[in-house]
Each structure stands twice: as C-alpha cells, then as structure tokens.
C-alpha cells in the first residue's frame, strides 16, 4: 500500500454508531507513517468498524506499554527495534562503539529484553499483543566486516531469538513471522537513515506498510477452515491410478512427482492438528482401495474420512462428505486438478473455497501448500483436535446403530453407556472452550464471537461462571463438546452464551447442561440471551420445544417447567468444581 492510498482510506467517512477497534501502537521511535499504514490496513480489514490507533512517547517503549489503559483496547502492536534494546544500536545516540562498549551493549540488551518481556507478559493477560522482533539491520558496530557474523552479533541475535521463543509461548501474544516479513519487505529496503536522523522514523514507506500488514493480519481474528476435500489422480499422487496401475502412481524425486509427496505430507500434518480430510475422486473404488494399501503413502488411510470414490458428479460426493462432517461448505477447501470439476462443485456450493492443484507447476503447488497452512492455522493443538476424526467416525457408528434401533430411543441411549464430565469455573484459559465458542454455528445461543481479551473480561465479575461439558460413550470420547457461560443474580441464571458441538447432537446432553445449572447453582429460572442467527436453527428448535414457544431475546425457563418437560436421561455424571 502506498502512503497516499493509506491517507485516502483514512479520509473515508466513518460510521459514528459502529464499533471502534482500538489499537495501541507502542514503539520507541516516532510512529509517523507506521501509524497511518496500520490505521488504514485495519480500516480495510474491519470495514464495518471504526478504527482508532493511539501512540505513545518517543524513546520509551516500556513506558508506552506500562502507561496504557488496557481495559479500553482491542489490541496492542509492538514493533521492537534494536534501539529499544540499547539506544547505542540506533543512530540518534552517540554512546560509543568501542570493543568495551560492545560487551556492555550485549549485557544491556539482555536486561532490556527481560524487562520488555515482563511488561508484555503482564499486558497480554488483558489484551491481544502483536509483536515484531527487530526488523532493521544492525549498525556497523562490530569489529568484523559486515560479511562475517562475529560473536557479538550472534550473541545479540541469540538474545532476541530466546526472547522471541519465550514470548511466543505466552497466551495472548502473537509474534510477526520474520520469514513472512522477509518475503514482503527485503532487508536492504527497510531502513530509512535520512528519516531516522531527521524525524526519528527509521522505516522506509515500503517497510512501514509491510509491518502494518503483518500487524493488522495478526490483530484480525480470522476464522480458520475445518475440512479439506482432495482429489486423488495427479493431486494426492502423480499419475492416473486407473491407467498407470497401483505401482505406476508416484510421489518421488526420481519420477518428478516429489511435489505430490510434499502435498501428502502437508495433509498428514493437517490431519494431525484435527483438520478433517476427505476424498472425492472419480475412480474405480476397488483400484483406489488397493492404492491405499501401498505402505509408502505419507498419509495414513486412517487420516482420510470419508473416502468418496465413484463415477458420479463431484458435487454429489462433496455433499455426502459435508453431511458426514456436519460442517458448512464455507469451512472447507476443495482441491482438484480439473478446472471443470472445480467449476461444477463451485456451482453447487458457492461458499466452498475451490483451489486448483497446479499439477505441472512446482512453484504453484508450493504456494498452495503455504496457503493451506495459513487457512488451517492453529497456535495450539488441543486434545479435542486429535479426537475429532475418531469421534466423527464414532458418530457414523452411532447414527447407524441409532437408525437400526429406530432412532435415539430411551433403550438405545441407555445402552450407549454415556458419561458427561462437567467442569465448573475451570478458568478462562481453557483454549478449547474459547475455540468452541468462536467457531460453533448450529447450536449457538446468539452467535457472538470474542477476541482473547473480550473473552477474559467476561469472567472478571464474581457472579460470572464458565461451565464446560465433555462426553464419552461406548462409541468413543468426544472431548469437550459444550460450553455455557453467564452470571448468577440471586436464584436466576443469566445465560450469556451456550454452544455445543454438532458431533454431540441427539444425545440429550443439552438437557443435562440445563439440569446442571438448576441443580448446582440452585437456580429457579434461566434467562437466555438468545438471538437468532442465520445458522443457529438447531438451538432455536431445541428452545422452541422446551419453552413451548419460539425463543426471543431474554426468554426464560422456570425450573418446574424444565422438570416437567425433561426427557429421561441416562448419562453418568461427573463434576469438577473450581473456586
């Protein structure tokens, strides 16, 4: 983005009644054009909101973080530069670059890094903090030439590297990737010496724009995809299995099909993080079954479910896969090497992201792999992520047996040997609860999504509560599948949020959740902060049935009505209560 474009974006009229995204740009240098770019990029990413970027005092990075009123912020952006770690690593201070000074600089950098880490840790408890570690080249302070990395230079980089490693492990902290920044902002075009000397702004316009791009993307909480549907021939492997035979397909250097191996490797890695991988292929099912027996495949057959191999339209296969996964098309990417198949599927599912597998273009495949990693990004892989595929297979078994039994009858549910573990006030650091609230659509009280800090603030009040439920039965564990939160007012529960994974439907878990609130919080009434969304029809139907009328904002359920309408429940219940 050019500076003039950024300024023109900021001139656009703002909607005074819209929410304002408030970001603090805390840096040790003059924020100048970085502030302009950041504000403009955020305006582009949050078109429905106003944006306010505030900055602090020159030369005081730590103070700018400490002085900030975090309760009003949505995020804090911290571009840390070498001069913040020791002013002698900038050009606006003449503190000496003699060999003895260098030893002192290293010690000082270490102390500054520790101090900065401490204030960031504290800030990250309240607000999302996005950080770039030093992006500018070091000045010519070393005894070695700029070609050689001497011990002082490597020690400085080591301190910064260790600090970055520690920061990346703090919840609420997002580090800008140096590799990504390197791609969009070459090192030799980052430093503006003239502007640094003149006004204390060390970035070239291009670099300022690139850092702002990085920050704004990290500040935005983009929903990630959940599933991937892949074609097989000339995609998962090189060659056509029906023509070339089981041994004719390949994914190896010698046969120039290595990129298919890398693709398998990425899909396998995604499956390991809980991404659902399905197959939609026009092929002979028996031949494909034999192909999957090959032991050198880098992707286990167990990672793929369902596998739709037939000669019908691809969109039919995609439809069956989406139904099995029970997720929306907008959460899935479909990959095929045929533009015609992609177009056919796209016509049937406009929300589905359809990507061409560029089979003869190694760089194109590489770019696709990079994009896939971004689309399914995950900072933390939870226990539930690992359970997901097995629980979907288990859901298939559940569905089959339930259908054979004529529906989820009392007898069938009793035989399921189900147990629910409730965890009460286990802490807002429960990443699974946070993730479930932010991605569940169908059984969702009001569809509200939360940023890290907004989520944490929900539980500041002593009357507030967080309840999670995990489930298992004879078909396998589902992990944490329900989250309820709200507050207690006398004997009335205000339920602000309630989500349940679609994998847990038809098990009467939702009744147990309400029963828990009535029984354990001594509640006589539950008030629902219900709001209809385009997707929460499942919860709408459940509440309609329970309340005997369509739910509205603030609708309530009395304990005696609940007890009169509740069906038989057969779960074994365990409860874990935290202070």
């Amino acid at each position, binding site marked *: 983005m*050019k*500076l*003039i474009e950024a*300024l*023109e974006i900021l*001139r656009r009229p703002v909607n005074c009644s819209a929410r304002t995204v408030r970001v603090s740009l805390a840096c040790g240098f003059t924020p*100048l*054009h970085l502030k*302009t770019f950041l504000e403009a990029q955020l305006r582009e990413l949050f078109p429905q909101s106003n944006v306010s970027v505030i900055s602090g005092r020159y030369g005081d990075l730590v103070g700018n973080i400490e002085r900030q009123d975090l309760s009003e912020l949505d995020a804090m952006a911290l571009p840390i530069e070498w001069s913040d770690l020791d002013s002698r690593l900038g050009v606006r201070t003449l503190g000496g670059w003699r060999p003895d000074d260098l030893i002192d600089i290293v010690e000082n950098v270490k102390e500054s890094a520790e101090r900065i880490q401490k204030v960031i840790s504290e800030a990250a408890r309240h607000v999302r903090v996005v950080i770039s570690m030093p992006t500018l080249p070091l000045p010519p302070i070393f005894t070695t030439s700029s070609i050689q990395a001497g011990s002082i230079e490597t020690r400085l980089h080591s301190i910064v590297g260790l600090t970055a490693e520690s920061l990346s492990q703090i919840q609420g902290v997002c580090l800008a990737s140096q590799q990504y920044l390197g791609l969009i902002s070459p090192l030799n075009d980052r430093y503006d010496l*003239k*502007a640094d000397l*003149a*006004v204390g*702004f060390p970035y070239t*316009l291009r670099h300022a724009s690139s850092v702002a791009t990085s920050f704004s993307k990290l500040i935005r909480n983009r929903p990630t995809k959940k599933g991937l549907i892949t074609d097989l021939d000339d995609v998962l492997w090189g060659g056509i299995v029906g023509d070339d035979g089981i041994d004719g397909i390949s994914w190896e250097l010698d046969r120039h099909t290595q990129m298919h191996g890398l693709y398998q490797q990425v899909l396998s890695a995604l499956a390991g993080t809980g991404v659902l991988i399905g197959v939609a292929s026009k092929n002979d099912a028996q031949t494909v079954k034999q192909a999957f027996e090959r032991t050198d495949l880098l992707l286990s057959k167990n990672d793929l479910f369902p596998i739709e191999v037939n000669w019908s339209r691809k969109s039919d296969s995609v439809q069956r896969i989406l139904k099995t996964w029970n997720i929306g098309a907008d959460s899935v990417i479909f990959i095929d090497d045929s533009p015609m198949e992609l177009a056919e599927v796209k016509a049937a599912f406009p929300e589905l992201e359809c990507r061409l597998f560029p089979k003869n273009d190694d760089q194109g495949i590489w770019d696709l792999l990079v994009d896939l990693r971004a689309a399914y990004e995950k900072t933390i892989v939870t226990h539930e992520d690992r359970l997901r595929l097995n629980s979907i297979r288990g859901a298939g078994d559940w569905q089959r047996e339930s259908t054979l039994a004529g529906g989820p009858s009392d007898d069938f549910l009793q035989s399921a040997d189900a147990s629910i573990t409730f965890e009460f006030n286990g802490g807002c650091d429960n990443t699974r609860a946070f993730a479930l609230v932010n991605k569940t659509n169908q059984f969702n009280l009001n569809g509200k999504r939360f940023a890290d800090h907004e989520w944490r603030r929900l539980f500041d009040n002593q009357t507030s509560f967080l309840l999670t439920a995990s489930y298992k039965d004879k078909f396998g564990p589902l992990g944490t599948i329900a989250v309820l939160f709200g507050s207690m007012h006398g004997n009335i529960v205000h339920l602000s949020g309630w989500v349940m994974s679609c994998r847990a439907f038809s098990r009467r878990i939702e009744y147990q959740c309400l029963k828990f609130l009535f029984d354990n919080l001594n509640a006589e009434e539950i008030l629902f902060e219900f709001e209809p969304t385009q997707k929460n029809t499942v919860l709408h139907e459940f509440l309609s049935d329970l309340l005997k009328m369509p739910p509205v904002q603030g609708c309530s359920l009395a304990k005696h009505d609940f007890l009169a309408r509740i069906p038989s429940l057969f779960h074994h219940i365990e409860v874990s209560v935290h202070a």
Partner: protein
Amino acid sequence: MLDPKDRLIRCFSSVFPGLSQEDILQTSADAVGEWDSLSHVTLAAVIQEEFGIEIDPQILQELNSFDAFHEYLERSGAAYIE
C-alpha cells in the same frame, strides 16, 4: 494517467483533506493551520513516493507552498517521471 499538477493536488489533498482543489492551488504553510512539521514530513513523504524522488532535507525546508513544490518538481524533471 493524471498530469503532474493533478498528481500533486492529489498528494496535497490526501494530507489536507479539508482543502478544496482551488484552496490547494493557493495554499502555503502560513495560510493553512494544519500545516505543521508533522504534516510537512507526511506531505514530503507522499510526494517523494508518488513521484519517485528524494528531496534534499535542506531544500525541503524551503518548500512551503503548493507553488514551491510544483516548481521544484518541474525544475528537477521529476514531474515527468511516471
């Protein structure tokens, strides 16, 4: 493609959004309240980026009106760099 004068007007307009095109043609640091050191630096950065030039800091101090910038661009030939 806009002519150099229009491109310069666009630069001024991005930094001083309250000024009309006629105002911009007459504008100078003395006459515009918002024309402070910060907006001067921003204006210079926008113009340098737009015209692909680097203005010497000594000369920049003297460029305190629309006409001054326009004459500088004409004199330096930068106005005709695409």
